[in-house]
């Protein structure tokens, strides 16, 4: 196996693929990247057995086909450290991989490509073409609410739901929930899958254009593919909570406020909130929101923000980080906060027609 490629051409797919590779592996080969050359097309594959990513790039003609695996991290570090516009010569000879660039020569250990595991795939049930930017928006607007290492394993991921031609993603950690629905209709059957946390974050890194991507949804995997890459993730085998039941229905108290002003006020009060619990107290009265925070050092922050509010007075506590997460992903000038009482969930959304809904449970103060 032998090929020649510019540093810049190699580094982009190599970086993406290496991102999937976990630093600490039980199987030595999982810290390697698989290189496969067919004609002028070089494929690079990284996997952690849950998520697999194949990146593709054209090399200069005149190579020799073949496949091999080499340590991913080391190859990335070597390529990154080379000067701009370096030309990289890669070859394999008697079980060793050789990387040559300028006057540098690096000999890397290898493991045979036949030992490289591939993610088992079931047959695809649903296929749809959708703009990358659409998927990216769904993830960006909801991923922050995914649980991390929760015993309720089905929360450590994101629900992707296809229903009546509508694509939606939902994430929740049991205290708050984020939901975003794509505006564009898709023509496909219904499906509901849970993409694991890592798969969501890796997929999000891949999506950076308006070009379309093909999503293939199987019974135990999802694949996203275009010319440059093929991303495959296993799915979380479990039942996602019925999120619609979590959406507040009796939230009769509505607050409209300036998003940036609120975000800044919360950011400032958060400084003097309890570092562990992050609680802030919201006091609503006619057209006024009073935000206060205390910490164990007896320090106190108070911000008074003008809002549109005509309901009865209400005092309610929240984890300020949850509120800030939402205010950071929303855009638009104004947001709407709907509440019923100090022990029931609150709904946050853009004041004008938005595609996203956020539910946050209060804190008992």
């Amino acid at each position, binding site marked *: 196996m032998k090929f020649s490629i510019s540093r810049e051409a190699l580094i982009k797919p190599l970086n993406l693929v290496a991102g999937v590779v976990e630093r600490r592996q039980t199987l030595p080969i999982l810290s390697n990247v698989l290189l496969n050359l067919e004609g002028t097309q070089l494929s690079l594959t990284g996997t952690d057995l849950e998520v697999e990513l194949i990146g593709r790039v054209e090399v200069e003609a005149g190579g020799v086909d073949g496949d091999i695996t080499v340590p991913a991290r080391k190859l990335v570090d070597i390529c990154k450290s080379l000067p701009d516009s370096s030309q990289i010569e890669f070859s394999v000879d008697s079980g060793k991989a050789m990387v040559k660039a300028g006057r540098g020569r690096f000999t890397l250990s290898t493991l045979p490509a036949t030992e490289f595991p591939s993610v088992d795939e079931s047959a695809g049930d649903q296929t749809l073409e959708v703009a990358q930017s659409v998927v990216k928006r769904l993830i960006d607007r909801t991923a922050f609410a995914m649980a991390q290492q929760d015993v309720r394993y*089905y929360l450590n991921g994101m629900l992707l739901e296809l229903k009546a031609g509508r694509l939606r993603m939902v994430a929740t950690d049991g205290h708050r929930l984020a939901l975003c629905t794509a505006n564009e209709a898709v023509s496909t059957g219904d499906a509901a899958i849970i993409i694991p946390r890592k798969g969501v974050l890796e997929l999000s890194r891949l999506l950076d254009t308006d070009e379309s991507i093909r999503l293939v949804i199987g019974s135990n995997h999802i694949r996203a593919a275009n010319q440059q890459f093929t991303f495959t993730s296993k799915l979380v085998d479990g039942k996602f909570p019925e999120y619609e*039941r*979590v959406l507040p229905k009796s939230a009769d108290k509505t607050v409209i406020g300036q998003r940036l002003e609120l975000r800044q006020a919360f950011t400032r009060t958060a400084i003097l909130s309890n570092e562990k619990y992050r*609680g802030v*107290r919201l006091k609503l009265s006619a057209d006024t929101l009073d935000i*206060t925070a205390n910490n164990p050092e*007896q320090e106190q922050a108070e911000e008074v923000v003008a809002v549109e509010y005509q309901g009865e007075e209400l005092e309610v506590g929240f984890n300020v980080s949850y509120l800030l997460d939402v205010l950071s992903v929303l855009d638009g000038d104004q947001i709407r906060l709907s509440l019923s009482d100090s022990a029931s*969930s609150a709904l946050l959304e853009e004041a004008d027609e938005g595609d996203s809904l956020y539910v946050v449970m209060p*804190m008992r*103060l």
Partner: protein
Amino acid sequence: MSTLRKIIHIDADCFYAAIEMRDDPSLIDRPFAVGGSAEGRGVLTTCNYPAREFGVHSAMPTSQAYRLCPDLVVAPVNIPKYREVSVQMHEIFEQFTDVIEPLSLDEAYLDVSDSTLFDGSASRIAEAIREQIKTEINITVSAGVSINKFLAKVASDWNKPDGQKVVTPDEVDAFTAALEVRAIPGVGPVTAEKLKRMGFQKCTDLRNAEARVLKRRFGSFAQTLIERAHGRDNRPVNTSRIRKSLSVEHTYTQDLKNGQPCFDKLPGLLDELRGRIDKGKLAPRIQKAYVKIKFSDFSTTTVERVGTAATLTDYQELLADGLARRDLPVRLLGLGVRLSPDFPEHFEQLPLRMEHDDY
């Protein structure tokens, strides 16, 4: 500081000795002191007034005190006991103001500028504090009342023991002018002697001093000297202590019948307590609610409850429990809350109600 402050300095009279005499009244009329033993080369920390007549004073080596007064009774120092009394005193202070700066076990500054008690009369607040300490703890304290810490402290010494002195804003100028420079905290025998040699014996002399001259001689202390000589002191009363409880109580001029008349008093007391909780923004720290009842025979009982928001219902139930303990009329009723130093479980993140959690 534009508005006039109202500062009270409270200073217990022969604190350690007073507590020992309270616990052993036979000591009252004899020369008595608290301190280390003569063998251990100890010194006296406090002595009562009969002992003082012999020339015995605090900080005097015990052996020397025995020479002056062979009949002197010396008790060992029992700090844990004094600390307990100090806490009781502090609890009384807290019923009058939140702004308390303890100086030692038996001394504290109180800022009552914002108090509405006794029509805002600091003098009457000081009287009430002294009275309450006398009846509840059975020791006497002296109080100084004025517009700043310096004058309050000087005044508390004026009518000692068991007395108080008010220096009103109008009196400040004349009062200070007549003070010996020695009265200014920080001026010890050496500094006083230096000042005397420079011709400054009283504060009024200091007022005419050239700042330059004082500065050269006393450095940064000169500024303080001049300020005090004019009766000025802008230092705030520093409260660093974290409040552990908050209470309001009322002694009734006529004992209340054990029963409904007591319950009738609850809403008013609770309103007052709530007001003080809100003012201190202490609601998140409430751990317990309690009711204190003093019966006509002066016996006292306290009923507490954890995990409460200190509502009227809580207090009604606590009061019912407390009243049932004695079949006597009630002299005093108090409502209080105990506070956690931190905000532990009070920040409880509620979960979303998802169907997975339902079963």
